[in-house]
């Protein structure tokens, strides 16, 4: 289902993939359309013009030129800060980090400047800014190239956080991100870049956008609610299919944006199922998994039939060795086990 061969030549699309865009293509299309629509949108990032590492910006420099698709130097603080300043100056910058982990060298510009300047100035400035952060494990890329650090930016105030898991969402959410007047982080899972997904006719409509804060119920069910993101959403859906044969009915919710979070949809679901599992590859301690658990416990305690559960990285760096990497990231087996345990079939 996924692409764990990111650093290998891509296979030619199979005939049935013709109409199934990849997440990478969807992101590219969203940015292309928005750059056509709005001349204020521009991009900065390392190598985005000539040889975009994961191909997400491929072809954009040819269409929009090197002023609007700016190759940045290895100066992440200056570049992210430049995006903040350009945004205050009326532009709508998009910044790519080659791996989202590298935001670590420039976090102050995000959390203290981009996210706080509007508040600090009593609403005088706005900072429309999209930061694209390739994330996630599964490529053998190691501890500093495989993290999913969105929980940090859910914690810090003033930042929207987007996690697209399909081509439809990648396009619709990216367009909303670009049109949003606030700092928005788009976490793009590297295993999803080349994976392909069915789309509806809307996909081609340049005015098709997906609003933030609306979770998608990817599958309905009545025994357990599983909240899952990015690649693990798809693993969960596969598990849910398999568990149906065991007579376990699983509802699967993709929050799609963590800030704003569609708490209502999740809580409603748990009120119906009485059981919650949260699956994400983020580090567990103070991670998004526990946050969703806490929100549900606060709002639907009376409806709970069992203790909510969570799966994630237990709190170690993502190791390089493939078998070790697999050991720290939730997988189908562990998802199935957790669901079975929730419904008392362990």
């Amino acid at each position, binding site marked *: 289902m996924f692409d764990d061969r990111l650093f290998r030549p891509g296979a030619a699309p199979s005939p049935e993939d013709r109409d199934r865009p990849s997440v990478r293509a969807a992101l590219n299309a969203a940015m292309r359309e928005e750059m056509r629509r709005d001349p204020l949108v521009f991009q900065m990032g390392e190598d985005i013009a000539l040889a975009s590492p994961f191909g997400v910006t491929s072809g954009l420099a040819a269409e929009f030129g090197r002023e609007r698709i700016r190759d940045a130097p290895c100066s992440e603080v200056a570049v992210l800060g430049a995006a903040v*300043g350009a945004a205050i100056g009326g*532009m709508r910058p998009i910044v790519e980090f080659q791996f989202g982990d590298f935001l670590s060298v420039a976090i102050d510009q995000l959390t203290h400047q981009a996210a706080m300047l*509007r508040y600090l100035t*009593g609403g005088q*400035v706005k900072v429309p800014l999209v930061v694209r952060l390739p994330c996630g494990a599964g490529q053998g890329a190691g501890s500093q190239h495989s993290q999913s650090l969105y929980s940090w930016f859910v914690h810090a105030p003033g930042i929207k956080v987007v996690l697209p898991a399909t081509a439809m969402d990648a396009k619709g959410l990216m367009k909303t991100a670009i049109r949003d007047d606030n700092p928005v982080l788009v976490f793009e899972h590297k295993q999803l870049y080349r994976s392909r997904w069915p789309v509806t006719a809307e996909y081609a409509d340049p005015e098709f956008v997906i609003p933030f804060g609306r979770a998608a119920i990817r599958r309905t069910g009545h025994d357990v609610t599983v909240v899952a993101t990015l690649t693990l959403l798809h693993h969960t859906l596969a598990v849910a299919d398999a568990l149906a044969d065991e007579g376990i009915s699983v509802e699967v919710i993709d929050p799609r944006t963590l800030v704003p979070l569609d708490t209502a949809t999740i809580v409603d679901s748990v009120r119906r199922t009485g059981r919650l599992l949260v699956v994400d590859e983020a580090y567990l301690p103070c991670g998004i998994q526990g946050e969703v658990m806490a929100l549900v416990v606060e709002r639907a305690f009376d409806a709970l039939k069992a203790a909510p559960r969570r799966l994630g990285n237990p709190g170690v760096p993502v190791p390089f060795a493939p078998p070790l990497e697999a050991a720290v990231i939730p997988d189908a087996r562990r998802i199935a086990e957790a669901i079975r345990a929730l419904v008392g079939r362990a």
Partner: protein
Amino acid sequence: MTHSLTKADVDERVALLRTMLLIRAVENAWADAYFAEEITGIPPSLSTGQEAIATGACAALADGDFVFTTHRGQAPQIARGLEPRRVLAELYCRRDGYNKGKSYHVTDVSRGVIGMGGVVPAQIPVAGGMAVAQKMRGTDRVSVAFFGDGASNEGAFHETANLAAMWTLPLILLCENNGYCITQPVADAVKAPSIASRAAAYGLPGVCVDGNDVLAVREAITAAVARARTGGGATLVEARSERVAGHLCHDRQGYRPAGEIDAARGRCPIERLRGALAAAQILEADAYARLEAEVAAEVADAVAFARASPFPATHEACEDLWA
């Protein structure tokens, strides 16, 4: 001794003097409010003795240009023409302050002032980004990053100077070298002959100017602005002055050599221009006294305004975060 200045030159000099006096008076009022315990929070950071830098620099700017201030940011705010009453109201954390009481990073977008300074070098890259916007939008406007000698040791300075050179940005990197980074003398932390000389590392022009000479500062910034407006790119300007009133105004500065602060006081930029204007018979003692009185009255009014302004309502704590 008389002079051969035009009326416009004379007016301009008097205006520069007035601006410096106003900065000093506003800041003193702020410090008074702190010492009288009218205000809480981090103690005021004053530009006493450094007023010529912001005054000269902002005199070289026009509408649509932007300045990004530091934690020692009141001087450029006043020099850009912000109203003392709303500046002080903000410093009193009141509803009628420029930022509605939300922060002391006084901002007035309409006058091109973005208040920053919570994190030492953070305004430098942001100013660079404003220059990106000014350039991409096809304006000939410029952006000015104020920062201190201490901040010149931060990575953000290096990266932004380099980016400005790469992208030929209309940016002025204005280093206010006041001799100290809190307790650390600049010579302890900067082993290069000057901060201006760091410009060469980026292929930028760097100039050093006497920061206590308001006309010299205005000149240096005018040249940098002209270069930026005509597509010539960024300039690093080091304006040398001395910090008089301590890092923050409660700082007793016991770490400074005896006599240093008094000597710095003796090089007061206000006194220097006043003396020059008096010597040239442009501004005699009584006219100067009138100017001082005018400024004092304006600031007294501003203090009254700030005091009378209410605190924001508690529900406002959760407003203004999202656009």
